[in-house]
């Protein structure tokens, strides 16, 4: 993966974002940045605005205040979408009757890239094959995606996201409804993508256990940004102690 010479280059800058759906304010003055090579976990209780924040970063929602910069451009003017991979929160809850094969889903990942540097059919097939192998689902490539288990489906979406060799990968609670063992494999795979391939990862989760084992940066969100910094410091921070003290209280209670 092509990493820039300067490893700590800022890829994403979120500047003083506020957002509301109708009257209810969901995000208040959130600022954070993501640097090249980061494995950032965005954590926070249900309804704390994590999904909303990601959607704003990706230009799917417009904040009423503040701005988002991706790779040096405002998101409204950003063009290099092939450098971003996104796995939305509902990816595991797809319509199980949708007639689309695993191969076709992964091929979707190459769609935006075509506009810029057109791959030949051969190259395309090769990239898709590689992505399928990387997540270990090449045997299922002709199956209808709805006929796979939740964990297998999740791998398909990972393959779709990595087939275009993105610089940044966004994952919104990717392991909801996936069994513990598959989860472990899944996070090992993310680790490999981050450390070996140099892909910057932004992971939304509300499982603190994951955070401890894999990430190097943490953003703790509850409408406002409660904490944003390195994982090591996070463990000594007030936010972390509150979270531990509250047990799952903070994680699951608020709406």
């Amino acid at each position, binding site marked *: 993966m092509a990493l820039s010479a300067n490893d700590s280059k800022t890829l994403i800058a979120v500047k003083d974002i506020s957002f509301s759906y109708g009257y209810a304010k969901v995000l208040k003055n959130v600022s954070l940045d993501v640097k090249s090579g980061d494995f950032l976990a965005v954590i926070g209780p249900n309804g704390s605005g994590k999904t909303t924040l990601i959607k704003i970063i990706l230009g*799917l929602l417009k904040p009423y205040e503040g701005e988002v910069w991706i790779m040096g451009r405002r998101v409204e003017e950003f063009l290099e979408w092939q450098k971003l991979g996104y796995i939305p929160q509902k990816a595991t809850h797809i319509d199980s009757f949708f007639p689309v094969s695993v191969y*076709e889903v992964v091929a979707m990942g190459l769609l935006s890239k075509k506009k810029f540097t057109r791959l030949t059919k051969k190259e395309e097939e090769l990239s898709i094959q590689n992505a399928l192998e990387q997540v270990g689902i090449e045997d299922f490539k002709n199956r209808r995606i709805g006929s796979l288990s939740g964990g297998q489906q999740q791998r398909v979406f990972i393959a779709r996201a990595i087939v275009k060799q993105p610089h940044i990968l966004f994952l919104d609670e990717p392991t909801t409804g996936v069994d513990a063992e598959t989860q472990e494999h899944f996070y090992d795979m993310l680790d490999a993508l981050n450390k070996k391939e140099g892909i910057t990862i932004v992971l939304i989760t509300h499982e603190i256990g994951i955070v401890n084992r894999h990430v190097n940066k943490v953003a703790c969100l509850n409408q406002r940004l409660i904490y944003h910094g390195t994982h090591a410091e996070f463990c000594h921070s007030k936010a972390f102690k509150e979270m531990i003290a509250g047990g799952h209280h903070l994680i699951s209670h608020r709406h």
Partner: protein
Amino acid sequence: MEAFFSYGFVQRALLAGIFVAIACALLGVFLILRRDAMIGHGLAHVAFAGVALGLFLNVIPLVAALIVAVLAALGIMKLKEKAGLYGDTAIAIFSSVGFASGLLLVTFAHSFNVDLFGYLFGEILAIETTEVLLSIGLAGVVVLIVILNYHKFMYMTFDRDSAKVSGIRVDRLDVLLTILTAITVVLGMKIVGLLLVAALMVIPAAAGLQLASSFKQAILLSSFVALISVFFGLLMAFYFDFPASGTIVILSFLIFGLFFAFKREKRLF
């Protein structure tokens, strides 16, 4: 069989019918998966107002219907978006107002006549050469546009947000799909009549979706069902004097039933 093919009106009907039916089936696959299957039904009723307007103003009804249907389709889209209505509510409003306006216009124009019944019930075997050319041309354009945008339409139908994040202009493609649907409904109206055009949009596509395990299969199977239904529908209309439109629709429904039974036995692919 030779007699069947030797008549000019049969050749015209076959050509126009197959082209239009395939355009319907292709769009139908996307519409069903977008939970928008009823739009064909709604637009057909609006197209009735267009036909009535054409008869009233004495312009070619097909052209008037095309314009009215495209405008209504865009209107339904906007109403859904802006008024926060559920899709079927916007369709219900437009289709009833469309049909009501059509009734008024037809009455004022004193044109409750054979022409009008042709539009209501279809007159594929009486289709004129200019209309054949128009139908084939437009249906050909629809098919071509769907094929050119096939992957993008598939992506945005399957996973809208991800498609957007890939830089696909889904809002523009929505408008494109809506316009294509409106055009196709009006062409279909000419073939099977506006009372049955919704069937042409939904049944072959629904049949294809029964057995498909990939998107490509869904598209190919649906088109195949459309083709077979039109071909044998016309054949039976010719030899047994059945009404062509009704026969085409019933045939496609029988194939749907067959596929459905097959699926229940065991998934084919």
